[in-house]
């Protein structure tokens, strides 16, 4: 697929931030991830 980079690349670079969905996914992943300590081991569990 053709891509044209010469259009407005400078304008885009000023406001380069990740999408809200991406940030939300990261925050939800963080909330869901819990680490269980057992003896000397650590288990990860994703709780939804």
């Amino acid at each position: 697929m053709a891509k044209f980079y010469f259009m407005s690349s400078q304008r885009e670079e000023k406001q380069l931030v990740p999408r809200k969905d991406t940030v939300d996914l990261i925050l939800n992943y963080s909330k869901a991830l819990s680490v269980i300590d057992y003896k000397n081991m650590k288990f990860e569990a994703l709780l939804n």
Partner: protein
Amino acid sequence: MKDCTLSDAVLVNNYIKGDETALSTLIERHKQRIYSFIYSKVFDRDVSEDIFQDTFIKVIRTLKLGKYNEEGKFLPWVMRIAHNLVIDHFRKGNRMPKFEDNGEFSIFSIISDGDLNAEKRLIKDQVEEDLRNLIHELPEDQKEVLVMRMYRDMSFKEISDKTGVSINTALGRMRYALINLRKVIDKNNIVLTN
């Protein structure tokens, strides 16, 4: 945002102690810089989103597992993770054969994507790691038989020859290994399914 005056080191510390909003503040504070850095290398919004996401998944896992030891240098550390993931992305790109869809022949008509998606792959890796850790805790004789049977695919006859015990003893050790694994899994509510 309420934590905007706190330093990165304090926020990281709060997050490790369980304050989820600290992570939100850290992302809000640094997202533009990290995302711009990634985009400046890959020049693709979708790929940048993926790498940004993978970067923070790595950050979260490292912090929650207590493996972070660079207090006060949060941003350089995250940037290094992002940088490594960008390199991984380009390495992967070089290894992958490229096909052009010219209309006459579409590669997607004969190749289906049988791979696990990112989430399932993550879970699979996690389950396998948990299981390896559990096996590591078994008594030596049981661990030996289980590893030979399940990982090296040896028959009980071969295991018996190799370990110098009877086939029945090897079978018994395998049975106790599984019982012990189940016990620990039940006791700690460990989920080992994808």
